[in-house]
């Protein structure tokens, strides 16, 4: 059954990656990143079960913590950009572009 979970995790990770590439609303891009993190978590959890040790679940737990912190800071950045530019599109924030 582990390989089934791995395949599902790979498919969802890819969907998240494609979403990051094609979407330009910063919030939706963020949601896609969350989807990718969750897909890796699923792989970790199923590996933990396969190996019979809880380390994989611990890693998934830490991924969740880091993802929560990342969401907080990322959404704050999106809010700040939106305040100054009145837009949440990732194409509009291009001042660092050479």
């Amino acid at each position, binding site marked *: *059954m582990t*390989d*089934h*979970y*791995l*395949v*599902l995790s*790979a*498919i*969802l*990770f*890819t*969907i*998240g*990656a*494609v*979403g990051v*590439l*094609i*979407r*330009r*609303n910063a*919030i*939706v891009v963020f*949601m*896609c990143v*969350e*989807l990718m993190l*969750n897909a890796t*978590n*699923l792989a970790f*959890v*199923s590996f*933990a*079960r*396969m190996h*019979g040790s*809880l*380390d994989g*679940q*611990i890693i*998934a*737990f*830490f991924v*969740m*913590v*880091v993802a*929560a*912190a*990342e*969401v*907080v*800071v990322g*959404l*704050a950045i*999106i*809010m*700040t950009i*939106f305040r100054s530019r009145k837009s949440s*599109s990732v194409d509009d924030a291009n001042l660092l572009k050479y």
Partner: protein
Amino acid sequence: MTGVVAAGAHQTGESAIFWVLAVISVAAALGMILTRKAVHSALMLATVMFSFAVLYAVNEAPFLAFVQVIVYTGAVLMLFLFVVMIIGVSSTDSLVETIKGQRVAAALVGIGFVVLLLVGFGHATLPKTTGLKDANANGGNVMGLARLIFTKYVFAFEVTSALLITAALGAMVLTHRERLRPKPTQKQLSKERIKSDRVAPLPPPGTYARHNAVDMPALLPDGTISELSVSPVISRRRTGEHEDLHGASPEVVARQDTKTVKAVIDKPVEVEEEEQ
């Protein structure tokens, strides 16, 4: 793909649960990247998160299943929805491609990537699934996780606390706004009010009127319309005819309303007599 499943590790009905949730989560994930509205994307993501929680529970990780529901669907997605609400629900993506052929290229890259991963998984020989019976035996899943977190991973755990505090502080600093001018006091506000033309409060909408919609201006005692009674924000948003006017002009309706109100006011005694 060759399914290698140990006899004891397989839960009954697991493959049925897996297939149902796999279809739901993949469909919801595709919907998430394909719908144009951010709110719909967030709801689709909630669906994916819930199915992940069930998959964790099936995978002998009950603690992570609950954390998934509480942290992701509870906290993170609510945060997403709040930000969507602040930034504007109507802020949809524009369909104009800035880089030509970017979507097609992204789709091709995605297909190539998933094929690469799946071929890799197909060639891997996975060991037999041991299951977490032994690991969860001494006090259950939560106890087992706690034992690991506070011994082997205690340093990572401590660093996590620093990360969370930094993230909270960072969010506060980023969203904090300095006041450009000092906050007006009650005294200043009342002085400005005396200086302005109108000291009394503005008439509320619906005064002397038969309509209680907030965007319908009030009638003054002499039957004229008071545009002051409608909030400037609402009156700016008001376009075209109001439904309550039934196609007539506002002046005509105001005259009719005044007539009706006057008719009621003129014979209050008769009404009372009828009632008695």
